Every structure is written in structure tokens, then in C-alpha cells.
């Protein structure tokens, strides 16, 4: 009778409460002694592996883990000191605390603990499963069978674990690390580069306080970032679209040649073409030389492409058109060709001009279909580090007290704050705010877009 009841239990995905409610002593005992349930129910190797993991975790925690966690709230306080050594007749340095390492090791320990918890949960489930199968007289999978299932039913586990490991270590851990920095005073200000403390929300307050230098810089950079992202996205979008329409017109000859000319420029690595542009637009660069030779500007003078704030801002937007339009051309050509031809035929019959057709058929259709693409491009432009850094480097700097120039975006400012000025905490706050703006912005536009509201309606 009992065997039958056990047989009907669903073993595909048992929850922890099920394990404790329905499991026998072996499954329950696996909670303190991992793998015990497996060992007692014909899965010796698997059980021993679980046990080894538990042992390794306990050893790690005793040797360094607990210490790492205990240091985390205080972030260390022992400064490095010089001590005169009589025997050697030299100054020796005592090993002081390094807050940055304490923070890193603390976060690492927390991640390892989370990982251990996941393995612990898996071990309980597997003990429960083995026990249920064994008690109901069914076949308990052997170790080799388990290994084989890694290439079959459990293939996602096998294939996703290595990438997940690297994402955790090289993307998620660093992000959490940076987010933590936003709540510390890790900065060159007041010399907190070795020892720093938690300061709560003070950095956010500094940045939002528009009377401080950092605060006023933040608002200035934020507004320019949004202006830049808007123009960079839409100028490319329109120019790319118009160009695609011009090239793909029925009457245009040698279409392949025109496309080749434009695509050639995105075949050159972007950093190379940006550096070329920068040198060409210097006061003594090729463009100014040419203008002088032609006689458009007097000899000896030059156009201030990157030295005047307004000029620099327009320059980067215009050059971004040069850099970005070929990509847009490539991406939009396919979408444009998908516009139903009968819409245009009907418009022709009704006598609409090409310009009217563009504004009342092409544009609405394109907006409708490419909203997700536009959001992605806008996001990419807010985070467009390369174009600004390689072209103008954020220059010109008009306010010498601030750390940002007139063309600095939030990202390039973040770079300057962290790498050049070592204001790590403020840099982290800027990063978090960029994320918040992007997340809220893209969520709102996407929710309000037609392509979300009426999926597949056009």
C-alpha cells in the first residue's frame, strides 16, 4: 500500500517543503550531512561528491570565509604603518587593511555561499528522488547514467554552466561590486583610496545637490547626454532611411556600387575611422587645409571643430551620422522592402506625391515595426563611449573646476571620474543613475509603443 503511494509522487521537480514532508529519515538527514540520502540509496559516488563539496565549503568558511564576512560591515580600519626595525636598520611596513580587497573577498564569499545553498538544495532533492525511487522498488539511476543524462535531458545544465560561471565572475560580481562602491567613500577626495567606509546615500545626495560642483556637472552632462542620444538616434534613422529609399528606387542605376561605397566605411574598424576623423578635423588637419586651399577660410585661420563648445557638439553629431548611417542603411533596407507594395500602388492611384507617401506610409510603418530597434539604438547611444571618447575626448573643457567637458556623456564622464580622477564612488553613482534612466525610459516607451499594445496589427 505504501509502495503505491510512493509511486504516485511527482518527482520531476520537488520543492524543499515536499522533501521534508514526504521524505524519510535519509532524505531529511541529507540536510545536515549532504549526500547521505544518496549514499544510503545506491548512489554512492554522487553522495560522496556532495559530501566532499560540503566539507570543502566548511573548510573554506573556517579558514577565510567567516573572517571575510566579519570584515565586510567595517571594511577594515588598520592603516599601513612604518615601523623602524633595529636589527635590519630599515623601515618596514606593517600590513594594513585594504578596504577594496575586503569588499571584494566579502562579496566573493557571499556568492560562494549562495552557490553552496543552490548545491545544498539540489542535494536534498536528489536524495529525496533516490529515496522515493528506491522505496517504490524502481530503478535508481547509477552514476554513469547520471553522467549520460548530462548530454541528454540535462544538456542545458552542461551547456549553460560554463558561460554562466564567466558571466557571474566577470559581469555580475563586478556590477555588484561597483554598486557597493556607490555607498562608500572610496575616492581620492579626503584620501580614502586604501581605507574607506560605508556612507549610505551621501554620494547620491552630493550628485543631486545642484549647488555643488559635482551636482551642477551632473545635470549639465545628463541634459547633453539626452540631447545627444536623441539627435544621434534620429538623425541616423532618417538619413539611413532616406538613403535606403534613394538607393532602392526602381530607377536608380548601379545599386550595388552605391551600397558598396557606403558599406565600405563600416568595414573599417570604428576606432580607426574615428581617430582618422579626429586628426582630419584638428586645427591643422586635412579639412582645414583643404578649406584654406580652396579659399573658403582665410589662410592661417581654422574652424574650431573641437575647441568651441557648440561646434564640438555639432561636430560629434555630424560625424556620428557619417559613422552610423551605413549601419542603419544595412539594417533598414530589409525592413523597408517588407512594406506591402500595394499601399504605395493605392497611393499612386490616389495621386499622392512621393514626399506625401514617405510621411504617411513609410514613416508610420517604420516607426511601428522598428520601435524595439529604436529603443535599442537610443540605449546604445546613451552608452556610446567610443564616438565621444575617440573624437573629442569630452573636450572642450570650459569650466575648469568640473571634471567633465562640454561633450562628455554620462559614460565618458564615468570613465574620467573613475580612471582619471579616481572618484570611484561618484563614478559608481553615475553608472547606477544611467542604468535607472535607461531602464525606466525603455520600459515606458516600449509599453506605450503601438507594437507592444497591438501585437501584429499593422
Amino acid at each position, binding site marked *: 500500500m505504501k509502495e503505491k503511494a510512493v509511486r504516485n509522487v511527482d518527482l520531476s521537480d520537488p520543492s524543499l517543503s515536499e522533501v521534508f514532508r514526504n521524505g524519510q529519515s535519509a532524505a531529511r538527514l541529507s540536510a545536515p550531512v549532504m549526500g547521505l540520502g544518496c549514499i544510503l540509496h545506491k548512489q554512492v559516488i554522487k553522495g560522496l561528491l556532495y559530501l566532499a563539496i560540503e566539507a570543502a565549503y566548511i573548510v573554506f568558511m573556517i579558514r577565510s570565509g567567516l573572517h571575510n564576512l566579519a570584515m565586510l560591515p567595517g571594511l577594515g580600519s588598520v592603516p599601513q604603518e612604518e615601523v623602524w626595525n633595529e636589527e635590519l636598520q630599515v623601515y618596514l611596513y606593517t600590513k594594513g587593511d585594504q578596504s577594496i580587497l575586503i569588499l571584494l573577498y566579502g562579496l566573493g564569499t557571499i556568492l560562494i555561499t549562495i552557490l553552496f545553498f543552490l548545491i545544498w538544495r539540489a542535494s536534498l532533492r536528489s536524495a529525496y528522488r533516490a529515496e522515493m525511487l528506491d522505496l517504490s522498488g524502481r530503478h535508481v539511476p547509477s552514476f554513469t547514467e547520471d553522467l549520460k543524462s548530462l548530454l541528454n535531458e540535462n544538456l542545458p545544465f552542461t551547456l549553460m554552466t560554463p558561460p554562466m560561471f564567466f558571466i557571474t565572475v566577470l559581469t555580475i560580481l563586478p556590477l555588484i561590486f561597483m554598486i557597493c562602491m556607490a555607498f562608500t567613500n572610496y575616492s581620492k577626495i579626503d584620501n580614502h583610496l586604501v581605507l574607506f567606509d560605508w556612507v549610505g546615500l551621501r554620494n547620491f545626495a552630493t550628485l543631486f545637490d545642484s549647488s555643488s560642483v559635482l551636482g551642477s556637472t551632473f545635470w549639465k552632462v545628463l541634459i547633453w547626454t539626452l540631447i545627444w542620444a536623441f539627435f544621434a538616434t534620429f538623425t541616423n534613422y532618417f538619413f539611413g532611411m532616406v538613403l535606403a529609399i534613394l538607393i532602392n528606387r526602381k530607377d536608380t542605376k548601379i545599386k550595388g556600387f552605391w551600397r558598396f561605397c557606403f558599406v565600405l566605411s563600416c568595414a573599417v574598424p570604428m576606432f580607426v575611422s574615428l581617430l582618422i576623423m579626429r586628426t582630419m578635423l584638428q586645427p591643422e588637419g586635412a579639412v582645414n587645409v583643404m578649406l584654406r586651399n580652396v579659399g573658403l577660410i582665410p589662410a592661417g585661420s581654422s574652424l574650431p571643430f573641437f575647441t568651441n563648445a557648440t561646434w564640438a557638439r555639432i561636430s560629434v553629431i555630424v560625424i556620428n551620422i557619417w559613422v552610423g548611417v*551605413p549601419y542603419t542603411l544595412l539594417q533598414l533596407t530589409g525592413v523597408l522592402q517588407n512594406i506591402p507594395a500595394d499601399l504605395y500602388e493605392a497611393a499612386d492611384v490616389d495621386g499622392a506625391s512621393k514626399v506625401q507617401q514617405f510621411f504617411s506610409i513609410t514613416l508610420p510603418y517604420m516607426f511601428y515595426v522598428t520601435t524595439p530597434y529604436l529603443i535599442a539604438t537610443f540605449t546604445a547611444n546613451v552608452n556610446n563611449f567610443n564616438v565621444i571618447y575617440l573624437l573629442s575626448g569630452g573636450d572642450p573643457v570650459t569650466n575648469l573646476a568640473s571634471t567633465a567637458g562640454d561633450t562628455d556623456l554620462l559614460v565618458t564622464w564615468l570613465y574620467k571620474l573613475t580612471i582619471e580622477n579616481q572618484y570611484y564612488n561618484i563614478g559608481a553613482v553615475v553608472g547606477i543613475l544611467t542604468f535607472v534612466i535607461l531602464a525606466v525610459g525603455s520600459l515606458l516607451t516600449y509599453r506605450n509603443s503601438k507594437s507592444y499594445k497591438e501585437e501584429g496589427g499593422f
Partner: protein
Amino acid sequence: MKSAKMKRRRNNMIVHIILAILAAIWVFPIFWVILTSFRAEKGSYVSTFFPRAYTLDNYRKLFTDTTILNFPKMFMNTLIIAVFSCILSTFFVLSVAYCLSRLRFKFRRPYMNMAMVLGLFPGFMSMVAVYFILKAVGLTEGSMIRLALILCYSGGTALSFQIAKGFFDTMPLAIDEAAMIDGCTRWQIFTKITLPLSKPIVIYTVLTSFIAPWVDFIFAKVICRANADQYTVAIGLWKMLEKEYIDNWYTCFAAGAVLVSIPIAFLFLRLQKYYVNGLTGGVKG
């Protein structure tokens, strides 16, 4: 009737003229760099557009003058990094895309959401932290920097699986089902059926991940810091335009830029079809 035809011809003329002007603007900088790479006069400031004399010395200097900026070494560094990170990232991207497209598991939705959220953070906000982490495990000294860069370039690639997933999504499920009935494991389906059938996307993934180390500049700069013997081509070219080098190295920069661009331009022109397919596939859905 005649006037309509005339008007059409006139419009056609205007369009072609506009295209010609635009094409000239777009090709002009590339043309200029190629000219500069053959220019005999040194320095970045010239008074004429066309060089006064042509020479191959710039290319020769790039490969022989290794005392200050060791271009051949940089080239080898980048090549090694590119080969290994290409192998790793291709494996990561394709296997993640395959799992998300073909298999159903509990972690699937959370993973895709996570990839979307992580994509909104400024890419290199975490760069400083990555540097500290790599330093803590001892990967920022000497030749270990290469390993560090390989990990940096391949570690996060599994988050940009969308194009490959879009491709796998278009393949009929019936093939997988038939193979399953014949007793194939899922691993065999992946390696023996899906991959051979998806040559375009495999080639696309291999090449994009191979190109990445050649064109990335900022990650390499933060991780290499002052270790000049570990520099990649991108940092080298950037260095050549710094104030202290620009007078002697400007024409060599152009030569280096041309050398790096040729293979990439070749790959890109061959691959633009897949590039467009992947992107429009993503837009559609």
C-alpha cells in the same frame, strides 16, 4: 505625357547626383588614409591634400622599427588573444543560443531577462571592478594579461545570444523530433544536426568574435595599463597619435590602420548578408 517623362529624367538625375556627392563624402576619409599611408613626408600637418612623394617606408618602418612601438609584437598579441577568445566565445554563444531556442528548462526565462537587464548597464561601468578581480587572482602581470584579455572578451559574450537564437528559432523542430525518435541524444542533435545545418550563423559568430579584440580599445587599455609588451594593435595605433609620437608615427598609423582594416573589411563585406539577416530577424520578432 512628354513632360512627365522629362520630369522623371530630371528627378533621376538629381538623385544620382546626390548619391554621388554623398558617396564621395563617405569614401573620402578612407581614401585619404590610404594616401597618407604611402606618403613620404613625415608629420601629421601637411599643406597639400595629395602627397608630394610616394613610398612604402611607412609599412617597412611599422614592422622593422620595434624599439619604441613594437607593432609586430602587438600584432602577435592580438592574434593570440583573438584566436582563443574566438574559440571560447563561439562555444559560449552557440551553446547558450541553442539551449534557449531548442530546449525548455526552468532557468530559461530568468536567463533571458537577466541578459536584458545587464545590457542596460554601461558596459565598462564594471571595468574597474573587473580589473580588481583579475588582479586578485593574479592575472594582471606579465603574459597573464593575455589570458585576462581572453577572458574579458569571451566571458560576457554569452549575453549576446540573440542573433544566433533568432537563427536557430527558424529551423523546423521536426528535424529534432525525427532525430530523437531515431535515438539521438540532445548533444548529438546539437553537434551532428543543428550545427552543420547552421553554417551561416556559425561563421558569423566565429568571425564577429574574432574581430572583437582587433577593434576593442578601451578594455585592453584599462587591463594592460603600462605593460607595453602586452599591448594590442588597437592601443598601439592609439598611442601613435599621442602628442609625443604623432610627428614620427603619423604616417605609420595610417599604414597600420590600412593593414588592420583590410582583413576586417574583407570579412565584413563577405558577411554583411548574415549581419542584415540576423538584425532584421531580431526586429521581426
